[in-house]
C-alpha cells in the first residue's frame, strides 16, 4: 500500500496531471471570484449559512425525525444505516426486490464513500454512470479525484483516448463538444433502460420530505424519472429545515463551486409518482446514512458537518493544486478531505493528511459556511501527538526545542551557537548543502546568518 508521500511524489512528477489541475482549478477560482464580487452581502450570507447548518447539526435528531415523517407522508420509504456496509446492503436489497439488472447513477460522493459501486458489482448489478465525469472514471476504472469535477485529473487528450476505445460511435476530431456528444449518444439508451435510479442528495428538506439534487447536465432527471424505483443515499447531515433554508444554501453552493448563480437543474423529489401523474418511479426510497457523522459531531468535528460539498477549498489549496486528488488516498480530497478522511478511515493510516498543510487559511476564507479547516486540521495533529503517531524525529525535535526555549539563558546560548555553526558551513551569503536539513537545501539555498551574533546579544552589547 503506497504512502501519502509516494502518491504525492508520483503526482508531482505527472506533468499531464498538473496541466489538468491548473486548467480546471484556475477557471474555478476566477469564476468564483467574479460571482462573489457580484454579491455584495456574500460575507453576511456566509455567516448565516454557517448558522443554519450549526442549528441543524445541534438539533439533528429532531430534524431527522421530522424529515422521516414528511417523506413518509409523501410516499417515500425511509431507511436508516449506521455504517457503509449497512447502507450498501439496504440498497442492494431494494435493487434485488425490484429485480434490477442495471441501475443508473447520478453523481454522489456519498455513494463513493460507502463503496456503492463495488457493492453493486459484487451483487452482479450493472451500473450506468450518467454524470459525464463519473462515466469517464468508470471507463478508466478510477476513483474521483475532486468532489465537483471527478475527472479533473484527466486532460482532454486522455478522455478522447478513453472514448475512442469504449464508445460505440466515437467522436471525430479533438473538440470537447464532440466528446460530450459521443458520451450523450453512448449513455442515453442504457440510462433510460435502467430499472433503478440511484442519486445522492445535496439537501434533504425536513418539512416537505424532499430530496434535492443539483446538476448541470440533466442526468439526474434523466436517470430518476424513467426507472420504477428511485433510491436516494444521503448523509444524515444533509438535512435543512425548509425549502427557504435550502434556497439560501443553494445560493452559496453554485457560486462557490462554479461561479454560477444556480446550476442548470435544481430538482426536488418528494415521493413516488402521484396518482394520475404521467411518469416517475413507483417507489422512492431514502437511505439516511451515519457512517461516522454522529461520532464526528461528538468528537469536535461538528463544524465539518456544515460542509455543502462545493469544492472551493480544494480549488484554492496550494497543496491540492500541486498533488491533485488521488494522492489524498480517500474518498474526499483537499482540505475537507484532510479533515474527513481520518474520521472515516482512521487517523493512523492517514496522519499525513492533516500534516501536509501550510496552515495558510485560504480554504476557510473561501468556504461558504466558514468551516475552520485549519483549526480542525490542527485538532488532528494534536490527536496524532497524544496518540504517539508522530515520527520519533519530530517528537524529539519538538521536545528538544521546548526544553531549550524554557530557559532564557540556554535559548540565548544555543541561538548564538547555532548562528556560528551555520556560518562555518557556508560560503558567501548562502548555504546550498546542509546535513540534517536536506529537506530545505535539496530544493533551495539557505541564507547564512550574518557575523556579529544574534539580535539579543547585539542589543545587550549596544545597550550596555
Amino acid at each position, binding site marked *: 500500500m503506497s504512502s501519502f508521500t509516494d502518491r504525492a511524489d508520483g503526482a508531482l512528477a505527472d506533468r499531464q496531471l498538473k496541466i489538468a489541475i491548473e*486548467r480546471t482549478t484556475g477557471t474555478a477560482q476566477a469564476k468564483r471570484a467574479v460571482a462573489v464580487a457580484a454579491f455584495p452581502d456574500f460575507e453576511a450570507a456566509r455567516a448565516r449559512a454557517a448558522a443554519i447548518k450549526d*442549528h441543524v447539526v445541534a438539533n439533528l435528531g429532531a430534524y431527522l425525525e421530522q424529515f422521516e415523517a414528511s417523506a413518509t407522508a409523501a410516499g417515500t420509504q425511509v431507511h436508516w444505516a*449506521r455504517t457503509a456496509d449497512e447502507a450498501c446492503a439496504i440498497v442492494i436489497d431494494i435493487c434485488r426486490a425490484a429485480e434490477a439488472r442495471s441501475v443508473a447513477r447520478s453523481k454522489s460522493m456519498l455513494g463513493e464513500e460507502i463503496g456503492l459501486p463495488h457493492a453493486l458489482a459484487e451483487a452482479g448489478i450493472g451500473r450506468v454512470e450518467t454524470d459525464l*465525469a463519473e462515466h469517464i472514471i468508470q471507463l478508466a476504472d478510477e476513483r474521483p479525484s475532486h468532489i465537483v469535477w471527478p475527472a479533473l485529473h484527466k486532460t482532454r487528450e486522455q478522455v478522447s483516448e478513453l472514448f475512442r476505445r469504449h464508445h460505440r460511435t466515437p467522436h471525430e476530431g479533438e473538440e470537447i463538444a464532440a466528446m460530450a456528444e459521443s458520451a450523450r449518444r453512448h449513455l442515453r439508451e442504457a440510462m433510460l433502460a435502467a430499472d433503478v435510479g440511484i442519486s445522492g442528495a445535496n439537501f434533504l428538506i425536513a418539512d416537505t420530505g424532499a430530496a434535492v439534487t443539483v446538476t448541470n447536465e440533466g442526468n439526474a432527471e434523466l436517470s430518476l424519472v424513467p426507472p420504477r424505483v428511485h433510491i436516494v443515499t444521503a448523509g444524515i447531515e444533509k438535512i435543512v429545515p425548509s425549502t427557504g433554508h435550502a434556497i439560501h444554501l443553494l445560493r452559496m453552493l453554485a457560486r462557490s463551486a462554479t461561479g454560477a448563480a444556480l446550476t442548470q437543474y435544481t430538482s426536488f423529489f418528494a415521493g413516488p409518482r*402521484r396518482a394520475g401523474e404521467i411518469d416517475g418511479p413507483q417507489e422512492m426510497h431514502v437511505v439516511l446514512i451515519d457512517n461516522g457523522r454522529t461520532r464526528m459531531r461528538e468528537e469536535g468535528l461538528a463544524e465539518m458537518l456544515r460542509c455543502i460539498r462545493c469544492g472551493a477549498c480544494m480549488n484554492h489549496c496550494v497543496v491540492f493544486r500541486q498533488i491533485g486528488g488521488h494522492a489524498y488516498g480517500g474518498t474526499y480530497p483537499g482540505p475537507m478531505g484532510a479533515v474527513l478522511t481520518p474520521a472515516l478511515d482512521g487517523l493512523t493510516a492517514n496522519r499525513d493528511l492533516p500534516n501536509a498543510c501550510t496552515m495558510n487559511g485560504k480554504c476557510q476564507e473561501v468556504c461558504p459556511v466558514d468551516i475552520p479547516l485549519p483549526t480542525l486540521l490542527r485538532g488532528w495533529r494534536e490527536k496524532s501527538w497524544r496518540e504517539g503517531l508522530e515520527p520519533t524525529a519530530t517528537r524529539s525535535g519538538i521536545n528538544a526545542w521546548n526544553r531549550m526555549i524554557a530557559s532564557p539563558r540556554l535559548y540565548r546560548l544555543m541561538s548564538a551557537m547555532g548562528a556560528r555553526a551555520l556560518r562555518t558551513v557556508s560560503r558567501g551569503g548562502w548555504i546550498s548543502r546542509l546535513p540534517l536539513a536536506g529537506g530545505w537545501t535539496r530544493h533551495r539555498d539557505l541564507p547564512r546568518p550574518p557575523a556579529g551574533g544574534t539580535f539579543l546579544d547585539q542589543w545587550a552589547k549596544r545597550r550596555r
Partner: protein
Amino acid sequence: MSAREAILRALASPIQADAAALAREAAMLLAGNERPPLAAESVTEAFLANLSLPSIGATHDRIASMEQLPDAVARYLAGQGEPARLYLPPDPRLDACDWSAVERLPTVPMDGGAALAIAVAAVAETGSLVLDTATTAPMLPNFLALHHLIAIERARLVRWLEDVPLPSPPGPRQRTWVTGVSGTTDIEGQYVRGAHGPRFLHVVLIG
C-alpha cells in the same frame, strides 16, 4: 437496537427543544436573508436579462395571449431549421389552441426533437423556470428533447426564489427549476452545451 434507534440515541441531547421552538429558531435564522443584486429593476426585465446571459443561453419571445402560442412555436422551429412538429403535454390550455400549423407528437423521440412545457412560475433573480409534474405534465420530455420550449404567463413571474409559491400538500412528485440549457464543464473545466439534456431553451412569455 435498530439503526434508527442507534442513530437517534447517539444524537439525543439533554435539552430537547420542542418543535415550535425549533421552528421559531429556524425561521429567525432565515429572516431578512441576504439576496444578490437583480439584473434590472423590473421583474420582467431582470428575468429576460438573465435569460440572455451566455451562461444561460436561452432565447425568448413575447406574445399577448395563449392563442398565439402555436405561432410562436412555429416561428421558433422555423428559425432553428427544425421541422414544424413537437411534443405537447396533455394540458387543456394547450388543447384549446389551434395547432394546425404544427404537428403534435404523441411522444418525444429518445434524442432530438422539440418539447413544450408550461411553467408554474419563473424567477427574475436567476432566470429560472419552475416545472412541476402533474396529471397534465410529464417530466421526461423536458430532458429528452434537443429543443426545450417553455411557456410562462407574465403574472407568474416572481422576483426571488423564495417568492415561488410552494405547492400545497400533497404536492407533485418532482419540481425542477430550469436555469438555462443542459451543459457540462467536466472535461478540463470547459463549458459545453447539451450534455444529456436539451441544448436549446426557448422561453415564450405570455401577457
